[in-house]
């Protein structure tokens, strides 16, 4: 009935307690935003994973650049390059697919240094050590959620670990 003006007394007041219509509206608003701007479904899992590997002596690296490129020599193969920055370290990795469905992760640390680097993923964690140029490689990584942890540089584990956010590889 367009044009009908309701008396003000019938309009809901801001000071009344929430009623079932309010709750119904809020539920609909939630459903609409959940549909229009959904949280990535795997995000809570990534955060839980991240919390599970936390320790007090860590530095969190932020993802600062990511790009996909076609590897020219091989035509259709995709290669991803991802850069993480933390206070003391830049970690750059390149991810290439292997024929068996696993991936190869080539990495560089800057400034270049020898560090123990762990890759945590769905399977058992893997560990390698970077060379003097800061290079490291994990040659066969099963796909899934993975996270890099660069162990402290000091003797006796002094210093801080640098942890990247989990990423899907």
């Amino acid at each position, binding site marked *: 009935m367009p044009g009908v003006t309701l008396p003000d007394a019938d309009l809901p*007041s801001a000071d009344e307690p*929430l009623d079932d219509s309010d*709750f119904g509206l809020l539920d609909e608003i939630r459903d609409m*935003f*959940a549909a229009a701007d959904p949280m990535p479904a795997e995000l809570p899992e990534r955060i839980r994973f991240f919390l599970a590997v936390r320790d007090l002596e860590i530095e969190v690296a932020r993802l600062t650049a990511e790009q996909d490129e076609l590897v020219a020599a091989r035509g259709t193969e995709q290669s991803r390059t991802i850069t993480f920055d933390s206070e003391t370290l830049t970690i750059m990795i390149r991810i290439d697919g292997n024929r068996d469905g696993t991936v190869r992760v080539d990495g560089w640390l800057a400034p270049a240094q020898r560090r123990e680097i762990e890759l945590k993923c769905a399977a058992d964690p893997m560990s390698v050590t970077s060379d003097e140029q800061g290079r490291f490689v994990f040659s066969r990584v099963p796909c899934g959620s993975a996270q890099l942890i660069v162990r402290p540089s000091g003797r006796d584990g002094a210093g801080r670990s640098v942890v990247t956010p989990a990423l899907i590889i």
Partner: protein
Amino acid sequence: MDNRPVMTGRVQQDRLDRGARIARLLGAARQGSEDALGQIVTELSPLLWQVARAAGLSAGDAEDVLQTVWLRLVAHLDGIHDSAALTGWLVTTTRREAWRVRATGRRQIPADHETLDELPAAGPGSEEQVIVDDERRLLWAAIGRLSARCQELLRIIAFAPRPDYTAVAAALGMPVGSIGPTRGRCLAKLRALLADETGGAWRDAS
């Protein structure tokens, strides 16, 4: 698309149970239970996602912010004693962190409602589904006519566990009542807009 929520005693009870469940999980997390903490993450991350996105962050920045906030919570768990305090702390910290990231000027996007995708189109549905979709379009349009502050508040409150509405609204700087949760200015305005557009018929049938 989900069935339209029907407000029954059962649904209400589930909502209250959700608050009690989070309170129990919080107790266990403070005792050091990694699993309880993980369940809280699963329970409340959708709320924090909306907080970060309503603050205008890109999806990537929102993910980073959530990770930072949850990590920071671990250091603050000892000072948080109930579900409302937990939800309030998480919302406040997420919002503050989101602003900080935005201030760095990286990958900013406008925060506003219009930049979101259109509501997902209704599939071929029953007559009932068509009515629901019409109501949703009305509701979506009405929300778009609210102030930016009200849009943000309702978007966030809608994802909060019900017993914590008051704490969440307070965290957003808009208390909805000092004693119990009252409707508040934003919901009252939304209902007035809807009543206006439907000649007072909005939802009377439900």
